[in-house]
């Protein structure tokens, strides 16, 4: 079983769920982005989703766009992504999934990308703009290397497409909570609950919910029915405003929603 799946299972067996935290590589600079990822892992985040900055991030809202644009302006290169995975996994024992738009992987070479991710100690890939229908190269490379592959499921997905997402994914299915892009929202949609239940009907073992989650209360709500809650913009905003110390504090606060602290 993959390290991601075993973390999710362990949390579930403990009567809770996992907190998954997103941060982009290279923001506000390389070293601080690594320190921040380590800090959130030390403060209750169970799985790290490490974002690779990309010039045209259509799934991302203003907070993450701004951060990744700054990382690119600072000179982010793909090799920094692998280096960050290496440094993070050397310092903390949490699985690190890379989140990347598809073109950088294609240009790096799908097989080479998979090999370098394995060598760096990465757990797999979350691919927001790659649907399984277009993913044969990645399915083959992840099959060969054992990397996790996290595809997305949306409230608008048909039952047939949910089955496809479940069958194609390994690690978990990224359950898009609401129709939209990344960014904090005051209410996480009821749609998330319905979608997780539809995914279960389609045979999904691990469904983690993302988009719009920013409070411990929302994390708790989601973990009542899902295996993991994914927080991105709220962490990036904390890092932008108050550095590593602030993002660690926000992670710790969010982790209260996993109820392990209670």
């Amino acid at each position, binding site marked *: 079983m993959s390290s991601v799946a075993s973390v999710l299972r362990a949390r579930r067996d403990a009567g809770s769920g996992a907190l998954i935290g997103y941060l982009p590589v290279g923001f506000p600079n390389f070293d601080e982005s690594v320190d921040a990822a380590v800090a959130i892992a030390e403060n209750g985040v169970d799985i790290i989703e490490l974002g690779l900055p990309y010039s*045209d991030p259509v799934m991302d809202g203003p907070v993450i766009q701004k951060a990744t644009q700054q990382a690119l302006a600072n000179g982010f290169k793909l090799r920094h992504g692998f280096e960050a995975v290496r440094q993070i996994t050397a310092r903390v024992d949490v699985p690190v999934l890379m989140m990347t738009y598809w073109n950088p992987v294609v*240009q790096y070479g799908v097989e080479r990308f998979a090999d370098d991710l394995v060598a760096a100690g990465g757990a797999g890939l979350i691919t927001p703009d790659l*649907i399984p229908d277009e993913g044969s190269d990645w399915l083959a490379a992840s099959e060969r290397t054992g990397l996790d592959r996290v595809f997305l499921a949306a409230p*608008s997905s048909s039952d047939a*497409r949910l089955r496809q997402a479940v069958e194609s994914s390994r690690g978990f299915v990224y359950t*898009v909570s609401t129709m939209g*892009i990344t960014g904090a929202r005051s209410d996480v949609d009821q749609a998330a609950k319905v979608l997780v239940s539809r995914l279960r009907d389609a045979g999904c073992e691990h469904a983690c919910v993302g988009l719009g989650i920013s409070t411990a209360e929302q994390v708790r709500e989601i973990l009542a029915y899902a295996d993991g809650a994914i927080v991105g913009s709220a962490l990036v905003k904390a890092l932008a405003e108050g550095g590593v110390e602030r993002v660690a504090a926000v992670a710790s606060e969010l982790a209260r929603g996993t109820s392990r602290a209670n």
Partner: protein
Amino acid sequence: MALRDETGPYFGDFGGRFVPESLIAALDELSEAWELAKLDRGYAAELNELHKTYTGRPSLITEVPRFALHGGGARMILKREDLNHTGSHKINNVLGQALLTKRIGKTRVIAETGAGQHGVATATAAALFGLDCVIYMGEVDTERQALNVARMRLLGAEVVAVKTGSRTLKDAINDAMRDWVTNVDTTNYIFGTVAGPHPFPAMVRDLQKIIGEEARQQVLNLTGKLPDAVAACVGGGSNAMGIFHAFLDDADVALYGFEAAGEGVETPRHAATITKGRAGVLHGARSFLLQDEDGQTIESHSISAGLDYPGVGPEHSWLASIGRANYRPVTDAAAMAALRLLSRTEGIIPAIESAHALAGALELGKELGPDATILINLSGRGDKDMETAGRYFDLIDAGAEQS
């Protein structure tokens, strides 16, 4: 199989649907609606009526002998899409997609725009059909095409100036896609060119191919034979696909797409995607694009906002890869010289986009010689470009001399 029969989602190795899962249902819905509409006589009749009574189709062809003298004496014929209502070929596509929007029961449309031509056309169709309309336009483009921003607002559309990334067309597409992901229940995305995820490349081409179908017959009527070459400018590539399509299986008709070379393809400031790019994924399709070694999109440059795009439609990439069409770069300077030349020799002021095709045709004429006939797509008129042209040729200050 005839080259004209390709319907996507793939054109050879190019095309596809590289988009977030959230958009797949909407793309499926659009694909299905489009397949049904294509077979529906009622839809065709309604669209034809609009072409005739609203757009002003069929558009004329105009032979331009005084201009042609500067291009080796080859016979040159313009397809006059500049005479369409709203001033360019963009209206052909927009009316078709607006009718489709009504058929799928959505009440709000969004669009991206570079030069503003597609935005103006979409705002026009939204006004005509009573649809809410939001246009995404890069901040840089809102500045260089201020008149078109005013036109869209006058037509009742909201214009959003996009401030992210390079603040041009590619970023306008990103923001339009973000809007679509969020509002897909009520909103249809009227995409302006033959790029993007399936079904857009095939659907926009189908709605633009009327250009070539008309022109092919018009040139036959005028000259008794097919042209030796067809020339069009290529940004995303909708006017070029529109005029190329009817000729794809006419093996003796050479097809030439002219890309924006900006300050020169040897400099970093150009938009010559097929000439200088390589295959990759951008905006939902696999096609040629301008990118660095990491796959980050490189910002393009052209004096023409409508060609200032680092990607290109997948069918063009396919036609280039199989050698059916040729793609060549044309610099800002050559395009502007052709713009002035057509204005002064024929009394027709072309859009700067279309001026790239004119400049390319002048060179082509010299290569092919006086016996050749070249059909050129004059995709838009130059009214929107008067500020740029005025600055370029120093025409605007009182007392400015004849350039």
